[in-house]
């Protein structure tokens, strides 16, 4: 089932991709090519096969609950475009009225 240019536009917005309007039609064609191949895989009978979440067969890799020092704050903030008194600073995000009033 091919996807429409509108759907591609929506996915691009959700993923915060800054695409030029001209790029959408080419991208839609490319994505539909990929989906077509997936569609062909779907035709394979997988009755009785366990779904696979990860290749390689590894499982249950975990660590003990023991703290280790991380990064110094200066180092953590060093790569950020902007910081203020130990905080990362980003353009103001307002999701709700209440935060706007605050």
């Amino acid at each position, binding site marked *: 089932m091919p996807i429409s240019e509108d759907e591609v536009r929506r996915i691009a917005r959700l993923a915060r991709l800054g695409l030029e309007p001209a790029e959408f039609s080419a991208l839609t064609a490319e994505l539909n090519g990929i989906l077509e191949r997936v569609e062909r895989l779907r035709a394979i009978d997988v009755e009785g096969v366990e779904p696979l979440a990860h290749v390689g067969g590894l*499982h*249950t890799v975990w*660590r003990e609950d023991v703290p280790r020092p991380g990064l110094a*704050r200066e180092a*953590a903030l060093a790569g950020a475009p902007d910081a203020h008194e130990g*905080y*990362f600073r980003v353009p103001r*995000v307002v*999701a709700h009225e209440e935060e706007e009033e605050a």
Partner: protein
Amino acid sequence: MSRTEATTQFETVIGLEVHVELSTETKMFCACRVTFGEPPNTHVCPVCLGLPGALPVPNRRAVEFAVRAALALHCEIAPVTKFDRKNYHYPDLPKGYQISQYDRPLGTGGYLDVPLPEGGVRRVRIRRLHLEEDAGKSLHDPRLGTLVDLNRAGVPLIEIVSEPDLRSPEEARAYLQELRNVMLYAGVSDVKMEEGSLRCDANISIRPAGSREFGALVEIKNMNSFRSVKQALEYEAERQRALVLSGERVERETRHWNERAGRTTPSRSKEEAHDYRYFPDPDLVPLRIDAEWVESIRRSLPELPAQRRARYEGLGLSAYDAAVLVDERPLADFFDACLALGADAKQAANWLMVELQGLLNEKGRELSATRLTPEGLVALLRLIEEGTITGRIAKEIFPEMVESGADPRSLVEARGLSQIADREELLRVVREVLAQHPAAVEDYRKGKTNALGFLVGQVMKATRGRANPGLANELVRRVLEE
């Protein structure tokens, strides 16, 4: 009033999504310490900052705590579980996705029996319990912009999703209270709503009573206390009722509780909500949850709140008293310690709930900040029981025991507070008191029987509360009748 309003009864249908921060030492996928109230960005590393190339490794203890919580809620534990990415963009989520669990949650199909305020129990089904990581914290300042602290990013969380089995805001509050108790008793979280280690979102709809269909679902976010959960849900149920009654439709949407304004408002990020494009996280391999491990965790679960309440009721406490003790775990533990020392259950509960709570409320203190010991309280109860001191004297020395941890027996001896139960001795006092109050004696003899209470009170005062009250009463009456 319209016809519909007069005749249509509505039922409120509520389900809750509760997030509980697990009290592990380190974060879910990295070895940074879990902290609260530390300077911003002082407990971060490449993993929780979402730096390229950093790889997450699950915390075994967090998985154990999640299994513990799931077992305490009677969930089935998945033999194989995995982590998925939940994709959305917000500055306090540095990777652009939250590691969560989508289609194979750790726990499913549990329940919680919630004691209802009006009596009785409602069984609320738990749809699922899954593990995930917390986001950081954002501060929004009109001048400075949005400031982000990532100390909390990556802290282990469990999300507990109930079925829509709750029928009123009050029930929702009771569910939350009981869930909090269970998490506290299971020992997986400190569940402080004011510090954000317990957070709650709600789904709420209304439908005509008796209907089996559900109305349009509204999700409410940003309720930061038990009280605001109740208030927000009451407001929202009323809002939906008013819409339906005026012939309008309830929109399916996410709304935000505004505590100050006391109302819910539509969330602006509406059009993007609920499209998280989940997929398995390729950085993490599946977890196999060993059945024997699960059983050993099950065996290590302590007595849970419902069992404890039942035990207390079995000892003769009222349902209300049992609930008050169990809701305040340190108090319940103290009570148990008193029982182990042989205290009478009702007496001990009474002293803890009336005298001790009164003192604690007065001074705004916690039990742990006092010097009172179970041994001390039990010794005090014994002094009353064996008649060495009156209840009044006990109440008098109790604050000092709470303050200094003093042994009641030594206090009684040092201050000569033991009860006067000797007839001759007390009779002498009674005669003196009556001689000092001829007017009251006259009143009594004229038929004003309430003068008796006054005179007994004067005897108690003269003995500084040491007179055996029953005996004092009897002797005053006898002398008056002479």
